[in-house]
């Protein structure tokens, strides 16, 4: 326990050190500006968040009229597991494999399991922070509407804290196994990326499968379920506990008598602790062994000199080329940037597969007919906001780290700098958008009766979403130009522990909120959709142009004043 606390404190300090934070606030003016920017962005995001909470409340109220309260909690658990699959696996890879401190800790006379478990706790904390915003509203809404007793509230709080633990452990075991199995293959990094995508896809597919099995399919079944619901308010929790027994415990904690609630919570804690213990043994045996092998044989290949013909490139293309190669070759960069691009299409495919049945198809056909414009605008919005989720522009300078002197001392014009640095994210986004729109069109071919018209919509959406993403990318670049994270030892710091990535995420959501609000409450009421599309296109362009002018103006001053 002492060893665990020791290492945990060390890691905590490394990850979120308050002392360091205070010092920076006091002495670092740029850091203060960053924080202000961050707060400003958060405020801008507030409307979307309120909207989200509102949706949660609406869902609950609808569910309540149908006696579906238990389904609501199942949904929250589902969502939480989903988040863990989506983010947790990645976090585990990043923290366990791409972070240099494991290498530093292994020679020390501390049993590695303590250290590794404390690492796990850091990931758990991040997961918890995320849940605080996304999952907690579900529980609170449930608690308030169901008028829970005090002891049930306590149970609810403990359940909320414990829910991520076991799924995260399961994901952790799967991840470590994946990494161990792929330890000796050629092109290890590429195979791992594919393995990672397949695994996430598989897990989501499994989740979808459960969810579908779980909802009544035929009308008779519906009546049947409805009867059961009236008699048993925990019906869905009961059924879900077949797949995930922990749900039963949560059910007791939320809906049971005082004794049941106590027992439920107690057993939940006990099971979590047992899982943690087993996981620590697993890490000690399996992870450490694989990790040591991983770093035993760095394969250095030597190629002989062969004269090549020299190919001339424009400066911006030359910059983008190096950027691309580096993004592909550093595994943590590839996971962080191209990972998103591969996962979202996979998720889309899984979701579209799991939508089926004649009735649903008919429903979707009429839905699409009625809401065609809204749907395509939603796609534009989605693709635009995704631009902020791919941290390429936001880490353009940070990723250069200690090699930043190269680009800063070479005679590269600010125009070439900006063009070259935007080229990478723009091409990446272009590929991503084409994939997503193609998939959408394939899906629509099942339910739409005018596919050639859809094709035109798709092409227009592609162009508009790209144009609308430009301002986001330029702002991201500007944030990173103002205060890049250069002094890192380990590339994962540049993309994972970089405030700029968070800021750009916030900027993206704020931007998305503005787009949504302007459409839903203003444009939609007064303008035909063609005019709306033109407005978005033109304003995206004009905004991008002025932002470009703005960043270009002081580019060199910022370049000199970077450190």
């Amino acid at each position, binding site marked *: 326990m002492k060893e665990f606390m020791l290492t945990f404190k060390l890691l905590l300090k490394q990850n979120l050190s308050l002392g360091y934070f205070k010092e920076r606030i006091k002495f670092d003016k740029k850091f203060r500006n960053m924080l202000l920017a961050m707060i400003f962005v958060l405020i801008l995001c507030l409307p979307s968040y309120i909207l989200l909470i509102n949706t949660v409340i609406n869902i609950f109220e609808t569910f309540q009229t149908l006696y579906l309260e238990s389904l609501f909690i199942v949904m929250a658990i589902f969502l939480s597991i989903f988040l863990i699959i989506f983010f947790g696996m990645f976090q585990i890879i990043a923290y366990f494999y791409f972070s240099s401190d494991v290498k530093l800790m292994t020679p020390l006379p501390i049993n590695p399991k303590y250290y590794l478990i404390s690492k796990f706790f850091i990931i758990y904390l991040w997961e918890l922070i995320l849940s605080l915003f996304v999952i907690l509203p579900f529980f609170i809404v449930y608690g308030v509407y169901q008028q829970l007793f005090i002891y049930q509230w306590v149970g609810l709080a403990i359940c909320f804290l414990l829910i991520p633990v076991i799924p995260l452990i399961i994901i952790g075991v799967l991840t470590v196994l994946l990494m161990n199995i792929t330890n000796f293959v050629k092109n290890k990094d590429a195979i791992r990326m594919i393995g990672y995508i397949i695994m996430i896809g598989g897990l989501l597919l499994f989740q979808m499968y459960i969810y579908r099995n779980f909802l009544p399919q035929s009308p008779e079944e519906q009546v049947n379920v409805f009867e059961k619901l009236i008699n048993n308010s925990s019906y869905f929790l009961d059924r879900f506990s077949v797949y995930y027994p922990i749900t039963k415990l949560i059910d007791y904690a939320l809906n049971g008598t005082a004794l049941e609630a106590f027992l439920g919570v107690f057993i939940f804690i006990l099971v979590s602790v047992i899982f943690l213990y087993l996981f620590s043994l697993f890490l000690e045996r399996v992870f450490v062994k694989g990790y040591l092998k991983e770093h035993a044989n760095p394969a*250095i*290949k*030597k*190629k*002989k*000199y*062969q*004269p*090549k013909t*020299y*190919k*001339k*490139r*424009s*400066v911006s293309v*030359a910059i983008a*080329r*190096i950027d691309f*190669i*580096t993004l592909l*070759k*550093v595994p943590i960069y590839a996971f962080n940037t191209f990972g998103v691009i591969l996962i979202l299409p996979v998720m889309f495919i899984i979701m579209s597969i799991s939508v089926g049945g004649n009735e649903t198809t008919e429903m979707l056909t009429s839905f699409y007919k009625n809401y065609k414009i809204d749907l395509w605008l939603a796609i534009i919005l989605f693709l635009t906001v995704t631009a902020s989720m791919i941290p390429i522009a936001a880490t353009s300078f940070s990723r*250069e*780290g*200690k*090699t930043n*002197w*190269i680009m*800063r*001392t*070479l*005679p*590269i*014009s*600010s125009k070439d700098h900006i063009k070259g640095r935007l080229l990478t994210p723009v091409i990446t986004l272009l590929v991503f958008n084409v994939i997503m729109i193609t998939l959408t069109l394939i899906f629509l071919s099942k339910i739409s009766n005018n596919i050639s018209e859809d094709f035109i919509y798709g092409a227009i959406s592609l162009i508009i979403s790209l144009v609308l993403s430009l301002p986001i990318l330029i702002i991201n670049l500007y944030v990173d130009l103002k205060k890049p994270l250069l002094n890192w030892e380990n590339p994962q710091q540049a993309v994972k522990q970089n405030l700029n990535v968070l800021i750009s995420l916030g900027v993206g959501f704020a931007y998305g909120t503005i787009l949504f609000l302007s459409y839903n409450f203003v444009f939609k009421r007064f303008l035909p959709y063609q005019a709306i599309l033109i407005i978005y296109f033109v304003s995206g362009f004009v905004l991008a142009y002025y932002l470009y002018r703005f960043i270009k103006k002081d580019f*060199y001053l910022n*370049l*000199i*004043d*970077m*450190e």
Partner: protein
Amino acid sequence: MLEIKQLTKRYGSKLAVNNISFSVKPGEIFGFLGPNGAGKTTTIKMIVGLLKPDLGEIMINGINNQLDPLRAKRQFSFVPDNSEIFEKITGYDYLQFICDVYKVPATDREVKLNSLLEKLVLKNDINGYISGYSHGMKQKLLLIGALIANPKILILDEPMVGLDPKAQHTVKELLSEHCLNGNSVFFSTHVLEVAEKVCNRVAIINKGEIITIGSLDEIRKKIGKDESLENIFLELTE
């Protein structure tokens, strides 16, 4: 070629460079000599645009590097003391990139690169990834990159550190060659011997201040005949 006027830089309360002035003439190799922590790197960083001076003016080939940084950068190329380069590309990729940036004509590239690679014995490694290079190899690669740009003035921070004797010898030759057409070289070193062998003139800096400027003969005369240069250096910078 390079003119520094009353340059000053503080880190917090620490005065790292204190009101220094000197100039490097065309065709000359100028040594910036001083012990560790004297302020050499700080001065060079201000010249190449990695650090903002608190006071003073830097003219590179007649261009103010604060007012017109891009044009100023076209006048020089720079090799730092830490040899940090992009790790995930090959040495060849790096050199191509430099050629693209400085717009080196395609015909020049091949001939000049080949001869530089041969002279510095890097030919066999140039298609390998830079992450597999030793410190010395990176240093050589950076030097080739700086030379292929054929700048008016070459600025080097401690260029001899980490090179083997043969490479050091080659570098000295290359630097002299570079000055033949009226180009200049400005480099820092904490080793007197290096300065003695290659420099036309030196400035000796200590604790952020320039103590003396001139050819080593002139400096020797100024101090007095009997002493060895070593002693002079030690005395001046104690």
